[in-house]
């Protein structure tokens, strides 16, 4: 059984996006190219294209999120889809309704796509397995497993600045263990052929088997960012900052906080990324976050184009199946 298989239809078109793993370099590149096409849309005066007119997209967020949910919503609206925002964390589950019940109820409302965020690894995969065949599922973050659209928008941002991936040295700093973002970035970078991926952090935040993901493990920040083309800082969740994983936010910053001085060993044209929101003074200095090498706000804008690309491709795959299901619209 393979996580990747159920993401593609028989002809290899993208049906669901659950994880970057198992998707080919060609497919990832096609998504990035499509996103490039959509950046024009997001900058024009009338920011809409009719690709998904008549489609209903439900944002199913079992965990709170501002950035991801908002950019998914904007992406869907720019494709002319109707959007339902469901903040499930505060509604059904507290009434004892199971995930499956919620899903089937929404299906009964003829939803064409679910954008799912959930605290459990594998949740999006489960929903994709259970959903009706005409419904697409996009993973907006499941537990520690994957956050593929974040990984892709980061690749999009890197490609815009670096042109390609072949010679890149990428350093990913912070809490790898709990990070779905890191897993998706690593999978994408490996598929796209990055020269070297380093993960940097204390041993409590790096899985024992990290190297099996295709990365080099490093515990020293200076060594880790040396000659790097891209430095990605991960968010450190507040609950990790004390207890047995880390002694304090202070010591973490002393060892792994990115400062201009520490960044000086990276390549002069290195870019600095962060999936947000930033803990200033923990993961990095404001000087770095707001500095010339930071592309953090670009990542946010790029998120819209990349999510438009993913939504359009999955809906496009649905339309290839022909006007069979109710509400199908061939754009």
């Amino acid at each position, binding site marked *: 059984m393979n996580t990747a298989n159920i993401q593609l239809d028989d002809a290899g078109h993208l049906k669901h996006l659950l994880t970057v793993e198992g998707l080919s370099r060609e497919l990832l590149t096609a998504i990035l190219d499509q996103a490039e096409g959509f950046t024009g849309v997001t900058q024009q005066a009338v920011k809409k294209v009719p690709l998904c007119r008549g489609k209903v997209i439900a944002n199913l967020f079992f965990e709170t999120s501002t950035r991801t949910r908002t950019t998914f919503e904007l992406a869907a609206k720019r494709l002319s889809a109707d959007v339902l925002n469901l903040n499930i964390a505060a509604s059904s589950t507290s009434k004892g309704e199971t995930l499956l019940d919620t899903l089937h109820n929404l299906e009964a409302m003829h939803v064409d796509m679910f954008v799912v965020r959930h605290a459990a690894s594998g949740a999006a995969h489960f929903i994709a397995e259970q959903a009706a065949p005409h419904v697409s599922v996009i993973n907006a973050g499941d537990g520690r497993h994957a956050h593929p659209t974040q990984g892709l928008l980061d690749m999009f941002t890197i490609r815009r600045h670096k042109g390609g991936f072949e010679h890149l040295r990428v350093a990913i700093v912070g809490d790898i263990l709990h990070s*779905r973002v890191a897993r998706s970035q690593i999978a994408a970078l490996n598929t796209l052929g990055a020269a070297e991926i380093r993960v940097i952090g204390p041993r409590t935040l790096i899985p024992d088997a990290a190297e099996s993901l295709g990365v080099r493990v490093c515990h020293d920040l200076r060594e880790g960012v040396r000659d790097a083309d891209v430095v990605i800082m991960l968010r450190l969740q507040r609950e990790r900052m004390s207890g047995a994983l880390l002694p304090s936010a202070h010591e973490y910053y002393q060892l792994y906080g990115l400062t201009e001085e520490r960044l000086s060993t990276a390549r002069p044209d290195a870019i600095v990324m962060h999936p947000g929101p930033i803990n200033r003074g923990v993961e990095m200095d404001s000087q770095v976050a707001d500095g010339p090498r930071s592309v953090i706000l670009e990542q946010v804008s790029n998120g819209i184009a990349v999510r438009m690309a993913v939504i359009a491709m999955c809906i496009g795959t649905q339309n290839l199946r022909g006007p069979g299901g109710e509400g199908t619209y061939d754009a």
Partner: protein
Amino acid sequence: MHEGMKISIRNGRLIDPASGIDREADLHCAEGKVVAIGAAPAGFQPDRTLDARGLVVCPGLVDLSARLREPGDEQKATIASETRAAAAAGITTLCCPPDTNPIIDTPAVAQLVHQIAARHGLARVLPAGAITRGLDGSQITEMAALKEAGCPVLSQGDRPIRSAQVLLRALEYASTFSLTLFLQPLDADLSEGGCAHQGAVSTRLGLPGIPEAAETVAVARALALAEQTGARIHFRGLSTARGAELLVEARRRSILASGDCAIHQLFLTEDDLHGFNSNCHLLPPLRTAADRQSLRMAVAEGAIQALCSDHQPHDADAKQAPFPETIPGISALETLLPLALRLVAEGVLDLPTAIARLTTGPAEVLGSGSGSGFGRLKPGRSADVCVFDPAETWVLSPETLVSHGHNTPFLGMEFQGRVRWTLLGGRMVFERSGTTGAAAAPPRHQSN
């Protein structure tokens, strides 16, 4: 068919690991007991003769851990449904953990389980009594009374005893009455929140891990306390190579410890979690291929003397959720013998050794506490007999499953070897009619 019935099982390959018998021999039963092996006693007139030509005749299987879900979780399964599945699987004796609702921590609940099982009469059900009240890990139970009420061993199910002091006292107190403690070798803190082996697959899938040390720490702690107290312990469900090694070293030093593993641990590994297959969500978790290989060796060498089903039937809802939120466990009674036979086919064990791990091995663990000396075929002993066709192939499917639990990763798989008849105390509790594979109707219960 009643206990007084005389049955002859003829022309089968009779394997009894306890006595070392492995030859074509007839088996004769009367008054619920085995009366002769080989020639029938003078004047023996069987009421029924079973032709076992080409079949294997062995002691009824003994399963050290099978959850029956009654009392308390009857929506998942009942003692009736699961003992019926056990009979169809050739299992005549099974030990059920105390984590029912109410918990088996008083004689009354133990007696209730015995009574319900006796009413259906399909398998000998031995309830494991709780080590601590409410399985709370702090207050020990009335162990002497539980033993008196028919609990041959004590267990915490899968709930921990966090305090080493409580475990030490429980071992001392239990050993006063020669009671063996079943311990799940899983450290509560190191396994907390985990749902997969901590390794390459959990790292890739982002599943919270359970490290190997969760087992080795628990094994080492329990062995130290067993050595200190001289009490007898049994590790219920080893999953790692290191855990098995620690057991071997301890036995060499004459610590009174034994161990089993769930038979699926000898086939499945962490790699089976790809795709978030919730039927492979188990506790202890599926480990690495190297662990699986070491466990197979330990079973072959006898360091792990018992294989059990670790049967945990669930309703469909239990597995219909994102992987970490599903409830662990496999519905496993009906794959116990077939998987053991697959070990034989793969050259891991010879057939008599495989049968030993399902009969004499577990029976020895239950030991004197269980009284009746089952797990072997010997004149004078209870006629618990499993007769199976080692050549019959069949496919495990929702239709062929007798258990109410359909939660098994082996659905759709073809197995070779299938039970034909099961006798419990001389009564036929299962008969597979014809070649259609349909199970016989459950026997009427006998009013005594």
